[in-house]
């Protein structure tokens, strides 16, 4: 049944998947989700990523995330909601996608010139779910301190990163390290497990965020602070929307290390970093109040973000 020589994991089989209330459904959903993420990361490393395969994996990821959210009764159980954080994250991202923010037309035009890069890197860019995962990958790799040489990314999009990026990155590191130590021992909550899964998966990434940040020209960062300042001014959902605007296409071409996509992903890092450790609402306050984060001055409204997550 499995390829010869491969160690057998235990995929949930024989599931009547149309039956959502079946307990197997959820475990299969999680399994598919983690496998899809793995596959996505893996395809980044392949010399010849197949566009069809990437699109199908991305669509599956998207569907799996949406279905998790579409069954709130399952997700909102008192006993730790399965994947609620990760799925909630993805879900807010996806719903936001459908509400394009007009205010960001200017900033979006900045993306247009990057489109040239996108069209050059052939098998380029698609799927928010993969974008999210690449973001999370980048996040994780800062903690991981992956020694693999990260392919350099084109610099253009890095210009759009908000100023106190280093602080943000630092905070990310700090926040995750706290988690990192506890990974092996944590037994609580499938919520934790699922976000752990996500982070574990992203160990596969070769990218280190430090490499990408090295070339930031901070003078160019100022101009986008104002833009990002709008992020927090909207209501709960719109914040997600605006975030979404920045979530770029990603490149599935590995030698173009995420090319424009991940660069643009990094724009979002400071805000996403607030999502990252929030695997369950109970643990959030500590992370948010940590000093490095509060020193960030790009106008993010943390309260709004918290509200979004709690609602989801």
């Amino acid at each position, binding site marked *: *049944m*499995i*390829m*010869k020589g*491969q160690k057998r*994991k235990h*995929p*949930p*089989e*024989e*599931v009547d*998947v*149309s039956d959502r209330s079946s307990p197997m459904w959820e475990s*299969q*959903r999680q*399994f*598919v989700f983690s*496998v899809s993420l793995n*596959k996505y990361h893996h395809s980044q490393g392949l*010399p*010849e990523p*197949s*566009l*069809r*395969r990437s*699109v*199908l994996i*991305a*669509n*599956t990821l998207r*569907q*799996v995330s949406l*279905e998790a959210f579409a069954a709130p009764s399952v997700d909102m159980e008192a006993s730790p909601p399965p994947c609620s954080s990760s799925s909630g994250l993805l879900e807010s991202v996806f719903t936001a996608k459908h509400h394009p923010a007009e205010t960001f037309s200017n900033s979006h035009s900045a993306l247009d010139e990057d489109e040239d890069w*996108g*069209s*050059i*890197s*052939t*098998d*380029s*860019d*698609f*799927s*928010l779910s993969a*974008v999210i995962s690449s973001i999370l990958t980048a996040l994780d790799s800062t903690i991981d301190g992956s020694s693999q040489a990260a392919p350099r990314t084109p610099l253009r999009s890095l210009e759009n990163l908000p100023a106190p990026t280093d602080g943000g990155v630092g905070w990310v590191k700090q926040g995750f390290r706290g988690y990192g130590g506890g990974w092996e021992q944590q037994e609580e909550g499938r919520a934790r497990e699922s976000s752990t899964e996500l982070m574990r998966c992203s160990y596969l990434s070769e990218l280190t965020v430090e490499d990408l940040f090295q070339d930031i020209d901070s003078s160019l960062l100022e101009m986008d602070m104002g833009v990002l300042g709008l992020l927090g001014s909207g209501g709960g959902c719109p914040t997600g929307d605006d975030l979404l605007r920045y*979530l*770029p*296409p990603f490149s599935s*071409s590995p*030698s*173009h290390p995420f090319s424009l996509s991940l660069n643009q992903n990094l724009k979002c890092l400071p805000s996403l970093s607030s999502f990252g450790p929030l695997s369950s609402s109970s643990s959030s306050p500590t992370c948010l109040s940590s000093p490095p984060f509060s020193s960030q001055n790009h106008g993010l409204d943390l309260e709004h973000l918290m509200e979004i997550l709690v609602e989801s």
Partner: protein
Amino acid sequence: MGEDTDATPTLNHRGFLPDHNYVTEADIISTVEFNHTGELLATGDKGGRVVIFQREPESKTEPFSQGEYNVYSTFQSHEPEFDYLKSLEIEEKINKIRWLPQQNAAHFLLSTNDKTIKLWKVSERDKRPEGYNLKDEEGRIKDLSTVTSLQVPVLMPMDLMVEVSPRRVFANAHTYHVNSISVNSDYQTYMSADDLRINLWHLDITDRSFNIVDIKPANMEDLTEVITAAEFHPHHCNLFVYSSSKGTLRLCDMREAALCDKHSKLFEEPEDPSARSFFSEIISSVSDVKFSHSGRYLLTRDYLTAKVWDLNMESKPLETYQVHDYLRSKLCSLYENDCIFDKFECAWNGSDSVIMTGAYNNFFRMFDRNTKRDVTLEASRESSKPRAVLKPRRVCAAGGKRRKDDISVDSLDFTKKILHTAWHPNENIIAIAATNNLYIFQDKLNSEMH
């Protein structure tokens, strides 16, 4: 039908030592195609080579050697290339071969890898001129003083030599990987399809092509669907069909508009909500589409089924054949080991009464559309001695009642997949590519189509 198929000797694709179990990756066959008469059979492999087999004419004296296919010519069609702009290597693997209808003594075929299509001329030379005045037999210049009379050179027979030369190279027109090529019935144009675009070429013009379908979204974030296969209608030179990864087929008419993004007909089967799973979309992705010889029907292959569509009915397929439904409960594992992304091809027989497609464990399936009977056969050395009759195989569910010789689902070998199959245009002869081996089976008892 298939039950009485004889096995002709297995033809090795390469000098393959029988004791070796490993497979040289370059020898993996990636496409198989008969020409329009069935006299020639071309195979392409991962190493960029094309091998052409020719059918021996039937001889009365040796009844058993009639109609066998022997190697006719071998040539290197594509070489690995490097795209410097994207720092990507371009595989030399031959994705598709299509023959042109024969119009003179030479044969022409199109072969393509991921990026470049080439037109090859295959011609025979079996005579050479002898009796030159100025040169001797070895080609050395004669001493003029020895030439006393003039002679007219005559053509003398020589050992058959097959020459293959590239006549056209159609390059730089595809950003994405070419998955299909199809020659138009006008014999002047052909199309090439990649993941997002379809281009129309004239066979004589290599420096430009015409884009007729483009499904690339303005924002690649919105990309959710790719083109998986495309083919021209066998008789109507203005019609073509292309399939997508979402399980849809689009019939387009080139007379309607220059850019055929808008389809004339959309063939899509509504999803059965009770059969919905996380993998519904992946298994609905059409891996191959073929017009019937009559032009009236379409045959499509998705991961678990083969479907016959009537061009006049867009709402659902005419017939659905379960190729290996026992895999439906194993989709999770198949997704994990990537088998769910395998692209199986399908084929019609000459009279459009039987369809054939491959499966795992070196099994292939044939379905008779009229009698509704089907058979599973295996293409392997052990099970097919030369001239032995192929024995039908059966796959039983794990743990179910098992007859002798049945294979359980769990013991299927998923590395042995039959992705490429071809059926002779007129006779009951099929070519099956099993990894690096080519099997040719003939139905001796029922040679004529019925």
